[in-house]
């Protein structure tokens, strides 16, 4: 059963260490004990995995209140990690016997543990070490020979296994079985020989393998990247956000002497629970990349020469103003990268709109460059995903359309898998080739690449036939929808997509029978030739099934890059101002900015590059983006940056695009600065500076701010906090995302 989002749990009365309290029925005793600050040590128990009660570390004495008021104590101590709380339960966590039992379990665990803490990566942050300090015996009575096993077994490029240190808690094995679902690890042999390993001793081949390193309560699984590089007490840990994709995983970035050494997951139950994907966890150290732009550079005599910041600024402003004065506002253009924070994006579009008076701004690398405003999405509201991560567990059907979820949105994949595994949520996948998500999907539609629109139309037509009339009542423009897909009968769909009528019918029935549905659309939609029509079709599917205004259902077009959502919100678009305002609604913005804004819509990215080729755009400012490598049509982008008269590239690395720059400006990498990112569920999350900037790099927002100062002579923003405050004035939904409100877990802005 899907987990209802707003269910009121039934409370039961229990007593722990003499303190009476009420807890939700079925909550494990080990969690209930935390409420009264009774410390129950654990090894195998993990909050986000099913409890097994293997390690016996969490034993407590338990009794039940009898009707006559007496307490009947259970003869044996019980594992509190698997014992659900029920009415009248009485528990003691600190009795003499329990203290003895904890000592006993730790003594058992340590008899075969090598105790090589001085050379162990985990030493200093090791649950076994901590529990032994707090609860364990001071000496061991074990004088026999310890178990000897291989100590440095590479399981994969990322993970190293030390079998001697392993305490067989099974967390890693359970993770691969339950959470990531790839079932790569298993226990081999039995009894005292039990050891975790991959089946057939093959390579540990998983997209989430890094997590087992973090959940290992000893140093048995270590990161090959981090191994022997630092000790926990000489690293500095900073909270931040992973910028690998639009999931916005909360992470800790650990650095030693200003050098990033590792990335760990930071718990956020709303977003990534406590997981990361390998792409994020083992991402290259961009801060120390050899091809970083170290200082501002200007092309002189065909080569980029280092200059001072003010020289670069002066040249940029001179060229941009000059060309604008000569060729009009369309002679300058700006391309914003989706790796930039909300503050950067906001100031970038402000620089172009208020500073250069041009609407030629875009951020899109995908084929779809049409409208992103409200009208398209009506009546779903703004062009932003409707649901949040948690809804995956509350909905009854997850329809993954045109997305290789595990690759594009790893955390959504994990959460969708959890929803299926734990709560029995069904899944339906439509993708041209088999994907990982098909393993748990009840039904899969494999269509010919490029035929997404035909498939969606066919589905819509089938749905209109299947849905009961009373459900369709009151849907505006139903007849129009019906007419638009009238010709999309199953035979036509099969000819177009290769999906057999029976398969289509089954999928449509699945959707029609589900009380709610979350539609997750991905890369194949963004890059579709007729994306606008396709999105419209998906909107209609969401509408006719009644999911448009449901809390646990809806349409979610998931941005593909870290701050793709923020770029739309901040108005890094040629025809849209911050806050989904059309260009006609510029008055309030003019009031805040104190200037007049252009009314002419600007050029979208394709048109912008085309204009560069035709030399109508003379000056191009590319900030935080690498279109030559990442644009869906790299040839067009490459030709555009080569032929444009004056190219400014502001980026972290000397990218393919930056090679052609006339002015190259060094920007800070994500961990060298602070800011906010908006993830695919509209959650604005903060990052903090973890390491000092490299060379003369500046945060993007500061560069724009300094340019704006020179242009408009207005007081610039001195820090991102102020920028965010201004965003809140311009886009009221973001007022809730001011820095003071964001805290550690971020805030999801609400559609108004």
């Amino acid at each position, binding site marked *: 059963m899907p987990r209802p989002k707003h269910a009121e749990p039934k409370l039961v009365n229990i007593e722990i260490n003499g303190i009476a309290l009420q807890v939700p029925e079925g909550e494990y005793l080990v969690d209930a004990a935390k409420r009264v600050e009774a410390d129950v040590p654990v090894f195998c128990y993990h909050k986000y995995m099913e409890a097994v009660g293997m390690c016996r570390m969490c034993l407590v004495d338990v009794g039940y209140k009898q009707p006559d008021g007496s307490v009947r104590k259970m003869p044996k101590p019980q594992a509190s990690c698997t014992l659900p709380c029920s009415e009248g339960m009485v528990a003691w966590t600190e009795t003499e016997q329990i203290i003895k039992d904890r000592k006993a379990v730790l003594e*058992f665990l340590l008899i075969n543990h090598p105790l090589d803490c001085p050379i162990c990566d985990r030493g200093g942050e090791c649950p076994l070490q901590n529990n032994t300090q707090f609860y364990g015996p001071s000496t061991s009575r074990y004088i026999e020979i310890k178990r000897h096993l*291989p100590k440095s077994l590479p399981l994969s490029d990322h993970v190293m296994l030390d079998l001697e240190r392993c305490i067989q808690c099974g967390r890693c094995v359970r993770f691969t079985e339950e959470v990531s679902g790839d079932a790569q690890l298993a226990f081999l042999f039995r009894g005292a020989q039990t050891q975790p390993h991959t089946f057939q001793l093959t390579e540990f081949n998983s997209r989430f393998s890094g997590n087992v390193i973090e959940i290992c309560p000893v140093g048995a699984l270590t990161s090959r990247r981090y191994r022997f590089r630092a000790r926990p007490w000489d690293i500095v840990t900073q909270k931040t956000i992973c910028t690998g994709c639009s999931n916005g995983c909360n992470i800790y970035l650990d650095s030693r002497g200003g050098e990033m050494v590792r990335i760990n997951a930071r718990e956020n139950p709303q977003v990534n629970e406590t997981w990361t994907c390998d792409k994020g966890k083992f991402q290259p150290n961009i801060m120390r990349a050899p091809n970083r732009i170290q200082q501002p550079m200007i092309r002189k005599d065909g080569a980029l020469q280092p200059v001072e910041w003010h020289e670069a600024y002066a040249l940029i402003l001179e060229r941009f103003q000059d060309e604008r004065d000569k060729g009009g506002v369309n002679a300058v253009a700006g391309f914003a990268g989706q790796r930039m924070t909300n503050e950067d994006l906001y100031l970038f579009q402000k620089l172009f709109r208020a500073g250069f008076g041009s609407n030629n701004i875009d951020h899109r690398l995908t084929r779809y460059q049409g409208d992103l405003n409200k009208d398209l999405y009506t009546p779903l509201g703004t062009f932003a995903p409707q649901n949040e991560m948690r809804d995956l567990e509350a909905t009854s059907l997850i329809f993954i359309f045109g997305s290789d979820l595990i690759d594009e949105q790893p955390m959504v994949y994990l959460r969708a898998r959890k929803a299926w595994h734990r709560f029995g949520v069904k899944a339906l996948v439509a993708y041209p080739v088999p994907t990982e998500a098909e393993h748990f999907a009840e039904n899969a539609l494999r269509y010919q690449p490029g035929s997404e629109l035909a498939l969606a139309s066919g589905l819509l037509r089938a749905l209109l036939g299947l849905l009961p009339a009373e459900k369709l009542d009151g849907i505006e423009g139903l007849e129009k929808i019906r007419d638009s897909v009238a010709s999309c009968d199953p035979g036509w769909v099969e000819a177009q997509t290769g999906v057999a009528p029976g398969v289509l019918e089954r999928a449509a029935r699945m959707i029609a029978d589900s009380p709610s549905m979350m539609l997750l659309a991905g890369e194949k939609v963004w890059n579709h030739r007729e994306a606008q029509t396709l999105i419209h079709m998906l909107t209609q599917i969401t509408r006719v099934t009644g999911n448009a205004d449901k809390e646990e259902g809806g349409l979610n077009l998931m941005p593909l890059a870290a701050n793709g959502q923020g770029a739309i919100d901040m108005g890094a678009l040629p025809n849209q101002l911050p806050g989904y305002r059309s260009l006609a609604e510029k008055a309030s913005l003019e009031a805040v900015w104190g200037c007049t804004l252009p009314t002419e819509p600007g050029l979208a990215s394709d048109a912008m590059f085309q204009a560069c080729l035709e030399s109508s755009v003379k000056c191009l400012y590319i900030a935080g983006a690498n279109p030559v490598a990442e644009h869906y049509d790299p040839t067009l982008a490459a030709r555009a940056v080569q032929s444009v008269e004056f190219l400014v590239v502001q980026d972290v690395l000397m990218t393919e695009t930056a090679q052609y720059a006339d002015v190259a400006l060094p920007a800070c990498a994500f961990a060298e600065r602070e800011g906010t990112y908006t993830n695919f569920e509209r959650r604005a999350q903060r990052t903090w500076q973890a390491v000092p900037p490299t060379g003369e790099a500046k945060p993007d927002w500061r560069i724009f701010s300094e340019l704006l100062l020179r242009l408009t002579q207005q007081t610039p923003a001195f820090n991102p906090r102020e920028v965010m405050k201004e965003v809140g004035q311009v886009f009221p939904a973001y007022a809730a995302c001011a820095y003071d409100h964001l805290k550690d877990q971020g805030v999801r802005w609400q559609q108004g």
Partner: protein
Amino acid sequence: MAEYKLLTQHIDVPDFYQMQVYESLGGYLGLKKAVEMERQEVIDEIKKSGLRGRGGAGFPAWIKWNGIPKDTSKPHYVICNSDEGEPGTFKDWELMHKAPHQLVEGMIIAGYATLAKAGYIYIRGEYVECAQRVRHAIDQAYEAGYLGKNILGKGFDYDLYVHMGAGSYECGEESALMSSLMGERGQPRLKFPHAPLPTIAGVWNCPTLINNCETLSVAPHVINNGGEWYAQIGASTKNSRGTKLFSVSGHVNKPGNYEIEFGTSLMELIELAGGVSGGALKAIIPGGSSMPILPADQCQDAILGYEELMEKGTMVGSGGCMVLNEHSCIVTFAWRTAEFYAHESCGKCTPCREGTRWMVQILERILQGKGRPEDIELLLEVCDQIDGRSFCALGDAAAWPVRGMIKQFRNEFEYFIEHGKSIVADRPEWQRMAPPKHYERYNPMRYDYTYGIERALAGKG
């Protein structure tokens, strides 16, 4: 008192495993009677009989039968636990090998009473002949219309399957058995109150009745003769009813299975088995190797009954009665027992995984003459640390015998540690019968199971 042959009454009749012979001797009458009764009446008969589980715990059988939901919103299953792994026990072997139809009949009755869809007979992997015989019996029962669709015209459908274990002692534990049956790793699962009872969510999360082979074999007799009749057998005991098969082995003249009425004395059982051989009696383990040992002086007045033996500090268990004469070495016996449990520990929980190995290592060191006086206390403490702390009863089963032996024969352990040799080492009788000294052949690091991994490592370079 002599044997009371109920289950083993016709066991020596030639071809008793064949349907014709079994039916000619009153076979399947119980089933025919049962299907005429209401399902609840069958359960009530079992309740009246006072039948208790024969697998070791002695849990009243009817409570399990009655606990199965009365509706069939989920399919119900019956499982026969014939994974007879307890050292010293071989009663199920005889019951399955010689009277397979009796078990099949019991399974059908249990299935009828609990509205089951199918039954599984989980047979220990080594019992190949038994599995053949049981399969043969099932085939014959299908032919005779006792299994399959519409059994005896009563509209009751029931199928029976044989599943062979893969040689793990742990799979005799009911939840591990069900894991194994479902194709998972043979490890125990959470039990009540941590998880629902198997009668609510057992195999494949469906209501499951799981009973021992002997318990199910009794069912036809209870139905055939009535629960009250069965309850009269063994009425002299406190709460044990009926007969019990004891597998007598060790130093007796006629080792074998003996069926006796509850209330028979332990010494009578030994007399049935031809008396102690090779010397005077030293000790008896009455219920299989997991149970605490009973020294000779306490054996004299021991009565075979669940509560009666409990008072003596041991248990009926599975009825694997092991007899030791005066020339046996208890320390070696303790080592061999501990070695078995260390080998069979599934490795799931810490106390059992680490504790059983530690016990063997200590005992091995004592056998090698390197014992320390404090080792006895250490062994007792390790036993205490395992007992009641492990995930399932295997940990308890490993701790009880060693603790029992130290408690009853502490002097032998002390002698061994002090002199570096057994108290019976110089006796020619011991030298004749002493088992091969495995512990010398084994080295303490023998749990290095790394050959496969080293090979993989070599491949990786």
